[in-house]
């Protein structure tokens, strides 16, 4: 059985849908800005589900009024890392919340190798499971 026939990374919002266009992305950003979130852009080529912290592209953007600034930053990041995963994250600074409220993947490498489930036999018939990215054994920058 294929669990992910499209071979696409599914993390964050809208990841089962076709990629958002720039206009749709701007609308999402606008929504977040309306809620008072601070957007930031992050990229990685190791999208393992346990890889929580991706690399930051510039600082988180506080005090923005319009989505154009965020779109500009995403465009810059796409240009710099065309073959990386890029995600947009909205940080909610409300006291007591102080965490990521939205996360959208806005760029994917041309081919997404995906993950394999590794089974390790231990102690007789017991199994240990590990998720491993197919691209993970290659060095950084060559994984996509």
């Amino acid at each position: 059985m294929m669990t992910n026939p499209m071979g696409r990374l599914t993390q964050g919002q809208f990841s089962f849908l076709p990629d958002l266009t720039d206009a749709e992305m701007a609308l999402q950003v606008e929504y977040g800005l309306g809620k008072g979130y601070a957007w930031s852009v992050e990229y990685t080529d190791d999208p393992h589900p346990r890889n929580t912290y991706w690399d930051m592209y510039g600082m988180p953007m506080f005090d923005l009024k319009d989505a154009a600034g965020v779109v500009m930053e995403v465009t810059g990041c796409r240009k710099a890392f065309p073959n990386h995963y890029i995600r947009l994250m909205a940080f909610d600074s409300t006291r007591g919340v102080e965490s990521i409220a939205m996360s959208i993947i806005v760029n994917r490498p041309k081919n997404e190798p995906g993950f394999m489930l590794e089974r390790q036999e231990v102690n007789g018939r017991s199994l240990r499971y590990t998720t491993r990215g197919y691209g993970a054994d290659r060095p950084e920058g060559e994984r996509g």
Partner: protein
Amino acid sequence: MYSIPGQVKAQAVAETTAAGGDNALAAARTVAEVLAHSHVEPVLQELDDALVGLAPVKARIRDIAALLVIDKLRLNLGLAAQAPSLHMCFTGNPGTGKTTVAMRMAEILHRLGYVRKGHMVAVTRDDLVGQYIGHTAPKTREVLKKAMGGVLFIDEAYYLYRPENERDYGQEAIEILLQVMENQRDDLVVILAGYKDRMDTFFQSNPGMSSRIAHHLDFPDYAVGELMQISQKMLGDQNYRFGQGAAKVFEEYLTLRIGQPHFANARSARNALERARLRQASRLFEDRDRVLTVDDLTTIEERDIRASRVFQQVKAQP
């Protein structure tokens, strides 16, 4: 079950653009219709009422507003027009109202739908230029991002360029600024402000900047009569008024003050009024046992102004 990425894109874009446009404004065929939908008339009226003098500036703002309205009508009939370049340069002596007009401009442009949010971000050289290599670009970019959807007001813009220092980081800020001014015209409007002569030198050494700014507005100095009107308005806003003869003395004060160095138009008038308020306060403070009426508390007397340094200097001179 799954759709192929990219398949739905074209349709989605069409939908978002249709939803984003204001339908009523898109159907407008007369100037009055556009004005009715954009509420620009009250802003222009307010500009006329709230700002004294500045006739050439007001005329130019009307022109710009008219162009934007007509462009909207042309667009409604399918006549393609390039988005007008709205970057501006305000020159004039200190205190002539550059910042105030910039704020109004942001609002006018917002009501006409040329900037999406209509806020104004006011910055100076310090906010744009960094202190070490690699500091300037992110700093300038951050400011630009904050200003997007509104107006970026750069006060004393000529400080960005320091010809005496070849390695000054200001040049880098100017380059980034130019790039965004050119490529993201519909995202933000840049207004440069500064003294006339220094801005002229600035533009001479940065021809790229000069050619990207369509509107050069020169703010004339105020005449004494205009300054009096402004002063009356300022006092009124703070619930004060001139007492018997005080207005005449203040006019005399302004006439003398204009001739002196470091005269900053409306700002000088405001400072003079602030000092008069201080003197009024200490005059009332002296009378410990007097019951102070509303009249006492709101009136600036002749002697409060007469005590000014400006009058004493004149007396000392002959």
